[in-house]
Every structure is written in C-alpha cells, then in structure tokens.
C-alpha cells in the first residue's frame, strides 16, 4: 500500500484532495473563469478609465496601473476566501465529500491543507488571468510583474487559511456574510486597493498593517510597475506568518469539529 508508511509532514497526503477539486474545476472551467475574473476585470476597466480621467496619476504611475495591482491583490483575497468558505463548506456539510475522504487513509489535516492549497491555487488562476489582461492593456511595467504571481499565491493561501477558520465555526452558509461584511469588505476598501493608504486617518492605516492585504499590495504594486519592492521580507513575512498560523489553527479547529 502506497500510503501505509509512517506519518511525517502534516498534509503530506493533501495532494489527492487538491487534485479532486482541480478535476471538478476543470470540468466547469469556462463559466468559473468568466465568473471569477470577469468581474474584477470589469471593475478595472470601468473604474480605471472612468476615474482615471479625473484622478490622473498616483505617484509615479497612472491611476489604472495603480488600480490594476490593487484589484489583482483583492481578487486573490476574494477568490481564495470564497472557495475556502462556500465551496469547502459544501464539500464538508452538504455533499459529505470530506466524510468520504476520511474513510480512506487521509486525515483531517490532509483534507484541510488540501482545501487551503486548492483555494490558494484558485487565487493564483484568477490573478494570472487578470495579469494577462493587465499586460495586454499595457499596464505592466516589466518582467518583475511575473514575481507578482507567487506573491498572489501566498496571499491566496493566507486568506484561504483564515477563511477555513471561519468555515470551521460556520453553522450555515449565512454565517459567511458576517466575515464578508465585517472583515473582507473593510479590508478591500481600506487597504489601498482603490486609493492610496495615505488618504486615510493614521489609526486606520496602522490597523490595516496587521492584515495581509496591505502587505500583498505593498509587494505587488511595485512589481507590476517594474520596480523592486522595499522591505519585501517584512511584507512577505507577514503574509507567510498569517498562512502558517491560520493554517495551523484551522487544522486544529477542524480536528475538534469533525473528530468528536
């Protein structure tokens, strides 16, 4: 038996879980892609050209270039959160897909980590599509933009892990609205996606530093413009810390919820 050996790295067997979700996604790829990246691209075009005229430039770059990097980050956040909440919840509580997996050698940690990896991958898929559109529109300043993709993946994974914590507590789908309204929407509006952080009161700016979206933007905005971000290790460190801590907490919570 291939999986009979001793257990070592947590989530070492998460791969079949990821693959299962990938195969389902592949079947519905076209509508899924349209839904998930069509909307951010519409925002980019409408707001970018609409406001762009009024706003002109933001620092060194045009408004639509500014917006492109913001939307790339925020769509990594939303895509991963959505997948790790609504879709994971469906597989846990409605389709009982997790129960089927747990009858095999897979453990709760494999399933949870597999779901986080998949939700992060969806963020990567969507941001890749947005990056291609941005490049086609001439909004990308150099090859450093390719480095935005691993950052978007890490951001997606961090938000997926956070969302899995929410899912671990969710008694029903309605519960996710709280997280969207109380956490994700404020992050979207106050992290510098649509306008520079500097426009906001100092307290808000400081608070936002404790959440990963600001740090994703701090990395991706210069990368898209073709320059190297400052304090890259700090920003990357915050995102990775979120991923590891939230991922660990999510695994612990699900073990408690499922293995009762």
């Amino acid at each position, binding site marked *: 038996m291939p999986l009979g050996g001793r257990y070592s790295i947590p989530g070492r067997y998460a791969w079949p879980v990821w693959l*299962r979700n990938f*195969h389902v996604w592949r079947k519905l790829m076209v509508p899924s892609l349209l839904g998930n990246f069509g909307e951010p691209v519409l925002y980019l075009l409408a707001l970018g050209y609409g406001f762009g005229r009024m706003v002109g430039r933001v620092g060194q770059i045009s408004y639509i270039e500014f917006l492109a990097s913001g939307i790339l980050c925020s769509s990594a956040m939303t895509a991963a959160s959505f997948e790790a909440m609504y879709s994971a919840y469906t597989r846990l509580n409605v389709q009982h897909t997790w*129960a089927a997996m747990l009858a*095999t050698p897979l453990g709760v940690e494999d399933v949870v980590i597999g779901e986080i990896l998949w939700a992060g991958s969806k963020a990567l898929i969507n941001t890749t599509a947005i990056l291609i559109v941005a490049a086609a529109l001439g909004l990308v300043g150099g090859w450093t933009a390719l480095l935005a993709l691993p950052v978007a993946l890490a951001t997606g994974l961090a938000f997926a892990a956070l969302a899995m914590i929410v899912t671990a507590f969710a008694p029903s789908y309605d519960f996710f609205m709280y997280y969207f309204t109380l956490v994700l929407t404020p992050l979207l509006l106050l992290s510098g996606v649509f306008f520079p952080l500097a426009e906001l009161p100092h307290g808000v700016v400081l608070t936002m530093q404790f959440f990963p979206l600001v740090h994703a933007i701090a990395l991706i905005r210069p990368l898209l413009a073709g320059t190297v971000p400052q304090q890259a290790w700090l920003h990357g460190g915050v995102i990775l810390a979120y991923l590891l801590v939230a991922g660990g907490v999510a695994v612990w919570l699900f073990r408690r919820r499922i293995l009762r």
Partner: protein
Amino acid sequence: MECSQGLARVLIPAVAGASKAVIVEGLEKRYAGRMVVDDISFSIDRGECFGLLGPNGAGKTTVLRMLLAHTPPSAGRIEVLGYSMPGEARAARARIGVVAQEDNLDPDFTVLENLLSYARYFGIKPRAMRRGTSALLEFAALEGREGARIHELSGGMQRRLTLARALVNDPRLLVLDEPTTGLDPQARQLIWQRLRSLLASGRTLFLTTHYMEEAERLCDRVAIIDGGRLVAIGSPHALIGEHVEAHVFEFTAPDLVSRAADLARLEGVHIERVGETTLVYARSPEPVRAWLSGCAGEQYWYRPGNLEDVFFRLTGRDLRDR
C-alpha cells in the same frame, strides 16, 4: 540491520493478533457526560460476518466511528487488523473498505470518476486503477453506466456503487453502516448477494443493521446493543435457541386475543401483547394447536421464533426515539 528493524516495526503489529480482524475491549464513549457506548467488548474473526444490531440511537454508528478513528473513545482498547486505533489509523484505513450510513458519493463526478478519484485517496493512480474498474462496475451491476452522473442513479444503484467504491483498495475488512436501509426488496437482495460473495472471497464483514432478518441471513454472529450496552452476543441460531421459544403464534382476531390468557397456564408458553396483537411463544406447538382447534375458523399466523423476538425479549418494545 537498520532496514530490517524498520520493516519489523511495520510488520509485527500487523501480524500480532492476526487471527482477529477486530478486537474491542471495554469501549466507552461519553457525550457531554451521557454514556452513548457503555463498556462494550467483542472480537471478530477473520473471514467472519459480524453484525451489530440495535434500535436507532443504540450507539451502532458511534462504535463504528471509534473503530475507524473518526472519534476518540472515552475509554477502552481497539485493535483493527492488528493495528491499534486511533494511533495507527492511516495504516488500518488503507486496508479497510467503508460504506457509511449517509450516502457520500461525489456528485461532481461520474460513476467511473468516483471510483478513480476515491482510489487516489488511497494513493492508487488512475492508470493502476483502470484495470480494476470494469470488474468493480460489474460487481455493482453498473456496466455501461460509467459515464452517468450520481443523481441519475437510483438509490439501489448508488448503494451498489458505494459498495464497489469501498473495494478499490482490495480491503481485508469491510465496515458497513446500515447498508440496506431505505432500499426496496430487490435492491436489498442484490446487496445481500454481493456481501455473500465478498465473504466467500475471504474478507471480513462488520455491519450494523436494525433489520433482524438481514442479520439472521448474513451474519455468522451478532451483537445486540441497546442504550449503548451490549445485551447479547452469539450466532443468530444460538441466540434464538437461548432467549426465545421455537414456535410463535400471532393473534389479531378479537376472539382469540381475548381468550389467549388461558394459554399462559400451559407449560412452556409465554404471552406478549403488542397493541392489537397477541404473540404466543411456545416451546412445543402441539398444546397451542390443540387449544386453537377449539376456536375453529379464527385466523392466526404461525412462524418460527426469530432474531426479532430475541431483540424484543432483550430490549423491550418501547419506541427509542421518543
């Protein structure tokens, strides 16, 4: 040598207790202080079909969940196929096939994709699995349906597919939680037939049911549990012989019902009333037949004592979900 020591570590636990597929000792489960499984011990031989019987809420599913390391026991020891649970769950579950009480086929996949994706959870690649899928589809009587979606299948087909899916890893032990609940008689017959063929191939079956007939037909031995306690264990035949009279007469005709009390005076006769029905249990049928000949024309039913009678004798007739 380092390598052989490593090998021994893997092999020895699997060989120890090799004659037993399952050993359970002093198993307990408490939920919020309430005893749901209360000091249960039993063991299952390899190649045996063992049934766990009990009314709804008796604790059957909870016992299975502890066996599969889906919930930790509050007390007790569990060994499955020589692996100690829940510590060696991964290795044990690699050799177990599970048919859960709740249907959990993957609705996002076709019939064939369900088998292939499930095999992958065991680390079996599609290329290696593909050779086995036609035999599994035949086993499930689903030839030609490999492209069907799950919601297009009837309840019986889904259950057969679930059973076939539980075989992708060629398990030594099959654990089935109420495998025929909710199926029509034809679908049930087919499942029984398949379970018998699995037994014939040398596998061990551990199933729960609340259908006494099912247990009587399939199981070499059964354990009856009620309120989390083990109340009896043995072969269906032995349990019937031990706990109930061999002959049962059922009366519903008001005339017979009202006069049945006379029978209680006969040697070896036991009377039970269940609503409008009177059950007369008799060690030998002649005295009752003689008494009935005096009530010509009244209708009654005669049948041998069965596991259901044992069950009611041991656990009472009260509704459990009240």
